[in-house]
């Protein structure tokens, strides 16, 4: 009798190499399944168990996952873009033109990066609205809501810093306006303005500063907070579901008793 695909996988999971990498081993017992999640550095952030109903589209509209997806696309396209881009005044604009005109599929990379960035900002907001109107920010998830706010700010800053990098008129004036808004902060506005731009006007220093922020500091910070965000979902009892709330349960059981 021929082996099924599942059996091949089971055999693979029993090999020494596999066992050295994934320590949980084969088997579909509850323990094995939970170990498979817990003992993996990436997966241990997630709950070992999820209600099937919470995997349906209507429960979350997949907004958080889609946001993560756009973030991954941005990282994946951003790294090749960095190969073609010099954050210097004479080169920056010419490099974006080269991406458009001579780099193989460069315009595809750039557009994918750009549209994903727009989509990510949209999805982050949609995610927050969904969380807010579902009431999922309430205890014990209030800390994760705060982490979400931080992630929103990081997303917006990523979007803002990336805007300057093409070094065209749109970029230049957008950052000029944006940094002038920062200088409206009482008492320390001009200091913030100076710190943001590395000078008093949008110039080479600002470009370099925004590049480092956009490609290094902000993405790493984002990854850090995303990790905490996911980990907290597990610690806070999995994805929020209305029916799992104690108050709902009480009402439901009360209704049953009445009947």
């Amino acid at each position, binding site marked *: 009798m021929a082996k099924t695909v599942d059996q091949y996988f089971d055999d693979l999971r029993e090999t020494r190499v596999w066992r050295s990498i994934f320590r949980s081993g084969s088997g579909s017992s509850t323990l094995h399944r939970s170990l498979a999640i817990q003992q993996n550095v990436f997966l241990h952030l997630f709950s070992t168990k999820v209600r099937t109903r919470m995997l349906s589209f209507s429960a979350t509209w997949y907004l958080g996952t889609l946001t993560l997806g756009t973030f991954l696309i941005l990282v994946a396209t951003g790294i090749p873009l960095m190969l073609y881009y010099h954050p210097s005044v004479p080169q920056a604009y*010419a490099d974006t*033109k080269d991406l458009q*005109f*001579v780099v193989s599929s460069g315009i*595809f990379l750039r557009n994918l990066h750009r549209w994903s960035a727009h989509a990510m900002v949209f999805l982050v907001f949609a995610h927050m609205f969904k969380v807010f109107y579902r009431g999922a920010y309430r205890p014990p998830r209030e800390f994760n809501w705060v982490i979400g706010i931080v992630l929103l700010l990081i997303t917006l800053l990523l979007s803002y810093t990336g805007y300057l990098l093409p070094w065209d008129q749109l970029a230049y004036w957008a950052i000029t306006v944006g940094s002038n808004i920062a200088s409206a902060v009482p008492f320390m506005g001009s200091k913030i303005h100076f710190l943001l731009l590395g000078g008093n006007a949008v110039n080479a220093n600002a470009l370099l500063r925004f590049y480092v922020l956009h490609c290094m500091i902000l993405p790493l910070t984002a990854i850090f907070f995303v990790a905490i965000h996911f980990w907290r979902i597990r610690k806070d009892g999995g994805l929020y579901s209305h029916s799992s709330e104690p108050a709902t349960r009480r009402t439901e059981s009360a209704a049953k008793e009445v009947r």
Partner: protein
Amino acid sequence: MKGKLKAFWSLLFGDSVRAFGVVSLVFLASLAIAPSKNYFSEWRHYQRGYLKMVRNRADAVTLQRHFQGGIQQIWLPEIGVVDRCESCHVGLKESSLANVSLQPYRNHPVIPHKLGEFGCTICHRGQGAATTVSEAHNSTLAWEQPVLPAKYVESSCGTCHRGPVPGTPRLNEGRRLLASYGCVNCHTIKLADGATMKPTDNPPSLSHIADKTSREWIYAWLKDPQAYATTATMPNFKLSDDDARDISAFLMANSTPISGDTLAISAKPSSDPTAGASLYGESFCASCHAVQNAAGNVVGGDVGPELTRVGSKVKPEWLQAWLRNPRIYNDGTPMPHYRFNDGQIATLSGFLLAKTDSDLLANVHLDPSTPQQVAHGKRLVSDYGCASCHEIAGIKKPDNFAPELSRIGSKPITQILFLAGMPHTLPDYIAGKIKQPRAFTTGLKMPQFTLTQTQIDDITTALLSLNDRANSLPPSMTVAAPSESNYQPAGQAGKLIHDMACMTCHRINGHGGDMAPDLSWEGSSVQRQWLTAFLKNPNTLRPALIRRMPKFNLTDSEVNQLSDYILAVYQSPTVDRDSMPLSGYPAGQVELGKQLFYGKYSCQACHIVDSNTDKGYIGPTLTQVGSRLTAAWIFQWLKDPQALRAGTIEPNRAMSDEDARAITAFLMSQKGGKQQEAAKK
């Protein structure tokens, strides 16, 4: 139908494995769009087309060997050029493609620069980095500079070449027009070398205008300057009748008399037209002044004003005083002081006053002006910036009356308000603005100039050369304009030179006109005897020229003064006039020189030595050259003419010293005496 659709849906997305597979396939297909778009690019299409085109040509093998596939670029980092035009314009450097008219395969016309030297966009504009047709040629949201229309391409020569270049007639003329139409009186134009463009239109002062002309003429002139003189550079301000009336009232009221600038002469203006015409001709008035002939053609020079209707303009007593000595009315006029006697003044003024046009002032009837009109006129004169060009007593010349044009060639499209239906490009805007300045919005002050379409294109070309690149080029890439000094000769002779306005026509030490020879080194080149005779009675040296120096009726002492000054001061540092004798050359050397003159160097092609046999008329006649020029000058001239007069068409024949010395000996033997006597007989 509905059932079919349902079956199709379940075929594709029936279970999760199918759905995953189908979605993956769709995703993969959409990912393949990017590389395929990359592959089917325009430049590949054109390169394939090029290879197809050259395949059937006789020179196919050569062309195919020269062909290089892939994106081609000219990269000049020091001037910021990345031009990929040759990716599609494959045959630019192939001179054998001269018969191909199909773009993008035409070859480039021959230019003085190598094609790779500056790239393409330096001259043609457009987006050099682009590799698609529309992005490279047109203006897009992210690129404002479209390809420059071919008729304006000379403007790009002007970004590096700050002075006139022989190959750019359009640019040279445009620059000349900017100065000579007085554009730069109102619009400041700072050139890239730091200088400011200077006007050359020499607009007259209006502070004493009542001495010169009537209020009616001013009114008619203000209403339509070209009705008085078709060549007038004064623009039409489109004034209403009332405004013209009030400005004329103000100018008359504001005018102060100058003692001596009107003259009740004893001799009445003569009405003898033949005597007047011949004096007008002998005095070479037409070298500077034009007159419209019966056929409507304007004939004559453009240094002074057109005289077609001068009798309708000037007052007779002013004209006579002006002919006697123009410096009393206007010390800085380019008009020479001719030293005419009373009879000549009567003849000439009679001749000029007869040049009238009865239609010009026929319908002008002005009541005496009121103080309100004068005050209103003064305000209008300030509003329209009349004092930007004309000196007007009591009104200060306004600074920066009109927008500065120093970088107009790089004006961002986004800052421009276009007329409806006008193509949104900078050249179209500039040309449109020159053509109909007032059309753009209401309340604009710029007047209407009378220019032909060619002149408008010339000026547009010159303005387009005033761009950011011109101001940011490394100095090593620029070619400076010949510098114009403000040299003025000193002393008594200097006064004479000023009085006769010699420098209206002659250039001395980098200052002056270009109608007559440069005199900076005249003292090294001519003999005193000839110079004094010439100053007393100028004759023509060049048979091909109609113009010659007019006779100024100088006294002997004035002639001596001028000759002394010229011989002592205007010396070349490289020619010692006394280093070679004026005569006494051995007969053998003279004979050798003659053979060289007629044989080896064939000078008679352009010059005449023996008026019976020689036919050359391009260069000056040399029959009397031995009594005109110094031997040292002739010798140096033969050795290297361009060193003594830059730009002269006399070729440098790289003569040996012996040859040059022999020809000098031959030419110095041409004293002119014999021929003159022969001519008399």
